[in-house]
Each structure stands twice: as structure tokens, then as C-alpha cells.
């Protein structure tokens, strides 16, 4: 019996849904004739890192479906499933461009590269290596970031190596490193399936990590006893499945988290045996303190005092703390609402405090777990050390022993690496604005839209006395307006390389098709740049990203990141493996810091837990006091402006706005106003509303709803034509240097 092609495609669509549920589905007829081949990859968007299968026919990508063998079990969100049109967008840059008389004009690779190198060499000759830099991305491949960082730090002795992960997860890094001594989560996505309490704070998981939200919702439905607490000033879609949605005055979450710790101790719900054995108590001046000191510190955070600060009823704090502590396994999940704050590191610490206090750590379902915004911020930038203060695999520039170890691994003379950390992101773009930074190489990111208080930095990019070389896929990215040279890279599945997602999972993005025109893999562009700059060829002996991966494995091997067992061949076979993974027969690691789970801990280690990132093997409970936002609302600017994502767009919309279905779903940014505030100001749905902060002002159409609490307005940041980052503030966390995108003061009035 034959079936029509249309029927066949329908069966294929249905079978993918059944496969996602793990249910067998018998096809009525036909075979897998739809595509010539399927190539395994990873979604290009958020940090969930969903596995995808890219369908190729006649050397073109025609479809994308979920990989049933990866953690997403075949599921994709709508934007993940609609990536195909982006590959073939008319805005693809397919040849190098040089700005001449103000216009970007086509050039040869040789001409463009010679110009880039001449400008970099000239800047270094006149102003020293500190006048140049590299600004990368959590969307670049791991191999690309490792290589760029190596070229600048080892080849040019320049530590001005940064990337956009500074804007999204630097506070999570700071939190993990100060609490546990090592970056990256202790647990994994598997914990969602075993948790009996999910504590979600500062994360709109439903819209920003839809496939994880699915897993959370499925967990709740599988066991109605599972409790979900959502702490967010907005009543987002995530809050729809929550047992408790706790709204609060923006910027007071540190007080709330300390208040929960206070209740846990007062109700004797803390795990004294655990924290007395595995925890060090430490105050803000890094002095060791006692548990009793901690109890005293928390006296300032009784639920009643917290209510005064945050607006959260005292009984709600008590109830929340009790659910958190009394559950058999609590998992916390957080994202930008916690990280993009001037005390983001402290907020991260305070979440981990609750886990260390209650012993909800290192058991299935019990873990603190930060979600990440980009597909390769973790694996690409955090792990390879693609930031100005870092070296690969958790090593630090300021530590001589770490520099010396890297010098040995990279074949450099001892003490030859530059010991001075470079400029962090905001300092780097400020230096460009001030004329101190003369030449910058930017890879796979769109800072002219994504930086906070962006007018200031766009002015800097416009200066005539600096030079910006951009490796960029799309001609309509805002930053292209400011580039002196644009180099066209192979995009996503047009070259091979590794992405590392939020759960320490490294997975291969396979090459499915050739890149168009003159586009080249970024690894080859970077090697070309290095050689033309006069970097020792022995430092960059790579033909492709697989060569870089081989070296990166060796560089990480002596550290607790050890993923020596994640070979290229294995990545091609398997749908992602979680590090540490020391040998080729190791299955990867679900839970860190626990004997029997974490291969870094000897099997005969005398204790069950070992926080080996700390010299005494103990994690830290920090005394972090309440600290509000950098710019609180006042009489002149009485509202709080917060920004974020919508489900159908990702980051600056450079990719998702090219998908007709997604563009039509959210064609432009809007301002979300609470029903109560709208009534007060006479604002109706669709009215023009003026937002004015101390940086700039802009008009948006209103969406009136009960999502925002009164006093708060929300604007998504995907829209280049309504660029909300002109209004946001660029104050940074003093530890992580991450900006406070989430809170600034604004005026709101009907326009």
C-alpha cells in the first residue's frame, strides 16, 4: 500500500512527537526517504543545549528535528525547530567587507586580513598590547574561543580577552567559585526528574528554557506531591504551574534568601551533621566564622524584617523556607534575574547557602543549578577561560602556578605569559569609548545592541580613531554599522565543533552542509589572523576544529575539568557527554563532589562529600548582607524597568527575526504594564507609552496584564528598532563585573 508524500510527511511529524514521549509509533508505510541524511547537532539558541538532527537533501538543510538520544529526548521548542530559514537568510554575508568612504564594500580575504593585521600591528607598535583586544561569544564554538584566547594570551601576550558571557553568567561563575572553589554546576538536568521541590528564582524558564520547563511540568504532573515555588516579581507563564508564586519588590531577593535561611535554622530544619562536616562559615571579609555567628548574622533577616524590605508576607517566607527544607530533595534553578545584578555573586552564594544549610546537595534531585542563556557560554567561554582574568580549565591569570602550568602546556618559556588580567567587558568597551583601546576583534556577538546603556558604547564604536574587525554572519546585526572590516564565517552546521550546555554536557555540532560564498570556518580565520600577526606557527598548528579539540582535551586533563575521555570519535557517536569524564569508557558525571559519582574523588576517600575546589575540602556558607539595586526608583523616576526575553525570540533577534513565523509572533518590542498602574495612568492595551530613564527615552506600545506587579514594567530586548538597552544601566557587580540589566529606575507615562 502506497501513501502520498504529504501523508508520509504527516506520519514523520507524528512519529517525531511519539518518539519524544518514548512511545513506539508504527509508520503505515514508506521509509525514511525524506532526506538524504541526518546530521547530529545542537540547537543554536539557548543554554539548554537541545540535541537536534539536521535533515539534508540535495546539499541543503531542509528540516530540523529533536535528537531523541540527547537530554531533550527529541523535543524542541518552536524556535529550535524553525532554524532552517536562518541558514538561507538573504542577509547572509558571503564575502569579506571593508569600509571605504563610510560604506562596506566587497574585498578579497587577503585584502581584508591584511588590513585587520596592519591595524592591530600599528596599535601594538604605538600603544602596546593593551591597546588591542578580542570580544567573543557564548555562541562561538568551544574550539573557536579556546583558540582566540590562546592567540591573544599566549601569542600576543594580551589579556584583553572577553566575551558576552560576562553579560549573562559571570555572577554564576563568581557564585560557584566562591562557594565551591570551582565553576559549573554540581548537578545536572537529571535532578529535575528526581526533585520533590523545585525552587525557581529569577528565571522565566517557560519562555527562556522551554524544554526544561517541559521537564519540570512533567515532573509535577508525574507526582502531584512535587512542590514548585516560583520567586519572581513577574507572574510569568512559569508561575502557572507553581504551588507558590512569590512576588517581591525588585532587588530585595538577597533579604528574602537570608530570611529563608533564618527560618530554616529557627525551625531546626537545617542539617547540622552535614554543615558541621562539610561547610565553612565565612563573612564578607573572608574571615572564618562559626555557625553561631551565622545565626547572629541572620537576626537581621527575620521574616518580619524581610517583609518590610521586600513586601513578601512573613508567613510566605516561612512557608517557602519550610517547603524548601522539608522536601526530600530540593533543586534550585535560577538565571538572569539573579545574575544580572550588582550583587549577583552574592545572590548566587545565598542560594547555595540554602542547599549547604539543609544538605540538599549531591543527591539525586538535590542541587543548586544555574541556567545559562547561550548555547556555549559554559563549554566555550567559562571552561576554556575565554575571559580577561582566566586561563583554560579554571586556571587564573593572577596565579603564577597556573600561568606556569599553561606555559608548559603551550610550549612557552616560563614566566612569559602576561600576569596582569585584561579589561572586563564594560571596561573594554569603556576603553574603546575613551580612545584607549585602538583595535578590537569581535566574534559572533552583537554588542551594539546587547550592551547596557548602549548609547555610550555605540558612540565609542563610532570613533574614527579605533578599528573594529567583526566576524559576523548577518549584515543587519547592529554592530555591523560600526565595523571597519567584516569577515564572513561559516554558520552553525556549516562547520563542525563543540557546544557545552548548562549541565556540563559537551556535544558535537556536526557539519551538514558547505558554507555559502567565501565564508570560512572561524578556526581557519583565527589561525590566518595569528600567522599574519607573526604568532609562532607552533602555537597554532591547526587545520580544523578537531585539531583544537585534541589540544584542549590535553590542557584540561590535569584539572578537575578532565574530559580526556570525550574524544571526537565519541562525540560523533553519542549525543553529548557530561564532564568530568577522564577515560573513554567513563559514562560522564551526573553529580560532582560526591564519592562514587565524581571521578575526581578517589573511591576510597574517607568522606562521602569532597568539595575539592577549596583547600579544606569544605564548601562555604557566606554571610552576604542585603544590598539593593544600583538605581532604586525615586520620586523623579518612580518605576522599575526590567528586561528579558520572549519565547519566540532569542537575544538580539538577529536570527529569530529572520523566521517569518517567529517575527510575526512578536514583530516588535512592547512594554508590559500592570493592570493597576495602567488604570492609574489611563493606559489601555496598544496605547503608546513613554519610558524615560536617566540614559534615554523611548515609546513602546502597551500590553496591560497582571504579569508585572504594580511599580514594575517589562520590555523584551530582541528588537533592534526599539533598543531597550539605550535605557538600561551599566552598573556592574564588583566581583563578577556583570551589569545590572534587570533593574533601573524609569518614568512611565501615556505618550
Amino acid at each position, binding site marked *: 500500500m502506497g501513501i502520498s508524500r504529504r501523508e508520509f510527511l504527516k506520519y514523520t511529524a507524528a512519529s517525531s512527537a511519539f518518539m519524544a514521549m518514548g512511545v513506539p509509533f508504527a509508520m503505515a508505510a514508506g521509509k525514511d526517504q*525524506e532526506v538524504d541524511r541526518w546530521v547530529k547537532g545542537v540547537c543554536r539558541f539557548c543554554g539548554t543545549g537541545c540535541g537536534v538532527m539536521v535533515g539534508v537533501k540535495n546539499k541543503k538543510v531542509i528540516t*530540523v528535528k529533536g535528537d531523541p538520544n540527547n537530554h531533550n529526548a527529541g*523535543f524542541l521548542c518552536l524556535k529550535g525547530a524553525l532554524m532552517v530559514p536562518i541558514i538561507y537568510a538573504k542577509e547572509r554575508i558571503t564575502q569579506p567587507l571593508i569600509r571605504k568612504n563610510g560604506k562596506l564594500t566587497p574585498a578579497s580575504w587577503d585584502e581584508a586580513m591584511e588590513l585587520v593585521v596592519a591595524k592591530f600591528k600599528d596599535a601594538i607598535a604605538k600603544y602596546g598590547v593593551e591597546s588591542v583586544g578580542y570580544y567573543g561569544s557564548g555562541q562561538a564554538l568551544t574550539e573557536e574561543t579556546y583558540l582566540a584566547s590562546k592567540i591573544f594570551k599566549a601569542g600576543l601576550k594580551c589579556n584583553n580577552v572577553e566575551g558576552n558571557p560576562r553579560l549573562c553568567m559571570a555572577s554564576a561563575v563568581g557564585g560557584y567559585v566562591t562557594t565551591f572553589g570551582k565553576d559549573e554546576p554540581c548537578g545536572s538536568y537529571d535532578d529535575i526528574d528526581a526533585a520533590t521541590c523545585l525552587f525557581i528564582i529569577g528565571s522565566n524558564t*517557560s519562555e527562556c528554557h522551554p524544554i526544561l520547563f517541559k521537564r519540570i511540568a512533567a515532573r509535577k504532573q508525574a507526582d502531584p506531591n512535587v512542590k514548585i515555588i516560583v520567586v519572581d516579581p513577574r507572574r510569568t507563564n512559569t508561575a502557572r504551574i507553581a504551588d507558590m508564586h512569590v512576588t517581591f519588590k525588585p532587588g530585595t531577593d538577597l533579604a528574602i534568601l537570608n530570611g529563608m535561611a533564618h527560618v530554616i535554622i529557627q525551625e531546626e530544619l537545617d542539617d547540622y551533621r552535614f554543615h558541621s562536616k562539610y561547610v565553612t562559615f565565612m563573612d564578607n571579609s573572608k574571615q572564618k566564622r562559626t555557625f553561631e555567628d551565622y545565626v547572629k548574622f541572620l537576626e537581621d533577616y527575620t521574616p518580619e524584617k524581610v517583609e518590610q524590605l521586600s513586601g513578601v508576607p512573613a508567613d510566605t517566607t516561612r512557608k517557602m523556607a519550610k517547603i524548601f527544607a522539608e522536601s526530600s530533595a530540593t533543586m534550585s534553578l535560577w538565571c538572569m534575574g539573579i545574575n544580572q545584578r550588582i550583587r549577583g555573586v552574592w545572590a548566587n552564594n545565598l542560594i547555595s547557602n540554602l542547599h549547604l544549610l539543609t544538605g540538599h546537595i549531591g543527591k539525586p534531585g538535590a542541587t543548586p543549578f544555574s541556567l545559562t542563556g547561550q548555547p556555549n557560554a559554559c563549554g566555550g567561554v567559562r571552561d576554556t577561560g575565554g575571559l580577561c582574568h582566566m586561563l583554560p580549565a579554571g586556571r587564573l591569570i593572577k596565579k603564577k602556578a597556573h600561568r606556569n602550568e599553561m606555559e608548559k602546556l603551550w610550549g612557552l618559556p616560563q614566566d612569559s605569559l602576561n600576569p596582569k588580567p585584561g579589561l572586563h567587558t564594560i571596561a573594554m568597551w569603556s576603553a574603546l569609548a575613551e580612545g584607549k583601546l585602538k583595535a578590537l576583534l569581535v566574534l559572533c556577538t552583537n554588542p551594539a545592541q546587547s550592551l547596557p546603556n548602549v548609547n555610550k558604547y555605540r558612540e565609542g564604536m563610532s570613533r574614527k580613531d579605533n578599528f573594529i574587525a567583526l566576524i559576523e554572519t548577518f549584515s543587519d546585526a547592529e554592530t555591523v554599522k560600526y565595523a571597519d572590516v567584516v569577515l564572513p564565517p561559516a554558520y552553525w552546521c556549516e562547520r563542525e565543533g563543540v557546544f557545552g550546555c548548562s549541565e556540563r554536557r559537551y556535544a558535537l555540532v556536526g557539519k551538514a552542509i558547505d558554507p555559502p560564498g567565501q565564508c570560512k570556518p572561524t578556526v581557519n580565520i583565527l589561525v590566518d589572523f595569528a600567522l599574519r600577526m607573526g604568532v609562532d606557527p607552533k602555537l597554532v598548528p591547526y587545520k580544523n576544529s578537531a585539531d583544537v579539540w585534541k589540544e584542549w582535551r590535553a590542557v584540561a586533563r590535569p584539572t578537575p575539568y578532565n574530559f580526556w575521555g570525550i574524544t571526537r570519535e565519541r562525540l560523533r557517536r553519542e549525543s553529548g557527554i557530561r564532564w568530568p569524564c577522564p577515560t573513554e569508557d567513563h559514562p560522564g558525571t551526573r553529580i560532582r563532589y560526591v564519592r562514587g559519582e565524581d571521578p575526581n574523588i578517589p573511591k576510597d576517600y574517607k568522606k562521602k562529600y569532597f568539595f575539592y575546589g577549596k583547600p579544606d575540602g569544605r564548601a562555604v556558607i557566606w554571610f552576604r548582607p542585603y544590598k539593593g539595586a544600583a538605581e532604586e526608583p525615586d520620586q523623579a523616576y518612580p518605576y522599575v524597568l526590567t528586561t528579558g526575553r520572549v519565547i519566540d525570540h532569542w537575544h538580539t533577534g538577529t536570527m529569530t527575526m529572520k523566521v517569518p513565523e517567529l517575527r510575526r509572533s512578536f514583530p516588535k518590542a512592547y512594554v508590559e504594564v500592570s493592570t493597576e498602574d495602567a488604570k492609574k495612568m489611563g493606559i489601555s492595551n496598544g496605547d503608546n507609552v513613554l519610558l524615560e530613564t536617566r540614559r534615554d527615552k523611548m515609546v513602546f506600545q502597551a500590553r496591560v496584564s497582571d504579569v508585572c506587579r504594580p511599580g514594575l514594567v517589562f520590555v523584551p530586548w530582541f528588537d533592534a528598532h526599539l533598543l531597550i538597552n539605550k535605557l538600561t544601566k551599566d552598573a556592574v557587580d564588583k566581583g563578577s563585573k556583570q551589569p545590572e540589566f534587570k533593574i533601573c529606575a524609569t518614568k512611565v507615562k501615556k505618550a
Partner: protein
Amino acid sequence: MAIAGLLVHTLPKDLEAVEAEIRRMPDMTTYGIHQNQYIVVVAEVPSDRMEKRVDAIQDIDGVLTIYTTYVTLEDEVPGS
């Protein structure tokens, strides 16, 4: 015309009503209720209406969210 595989994640108490409502939509084919929380749906929708049709399902009471497991836009990829 796009074809998409969708899993409609639904509150258990509303499953049958949601499934019945989707079945009434001429451009949707349902493939049953599964695991007491999912409805398998295949959408055959002109691509310029896809998001509106998905939104129409999202707006049904009891629908938590919709997951896309497959989309083919074969007709729209040049040269395929």
C-alpha cells in the same frame, strides 16, 4: 505549506476537552492522548499562519505549553 509535529502539554483534567477542541480545527490532526498529559498533533498550515494556529491551541483552557518536535519547510528552501 508547513507540516509540524506538536506535543500539546495539558493539565490532566482538561485533556479530553482540549483534544476535542483541537480535533475540530480543520488544519490539525490529533493522534490521541498519551501519558495522561500529552496530545499528539500534526499541523498542516500555510507557513504564514503557523504561529497564529499554534497560538489558537495555546489559548485553549488547560493547555500548559506546546512543544514542536518536527517542522518541514521543504517547499520553502531554495534548491531543495
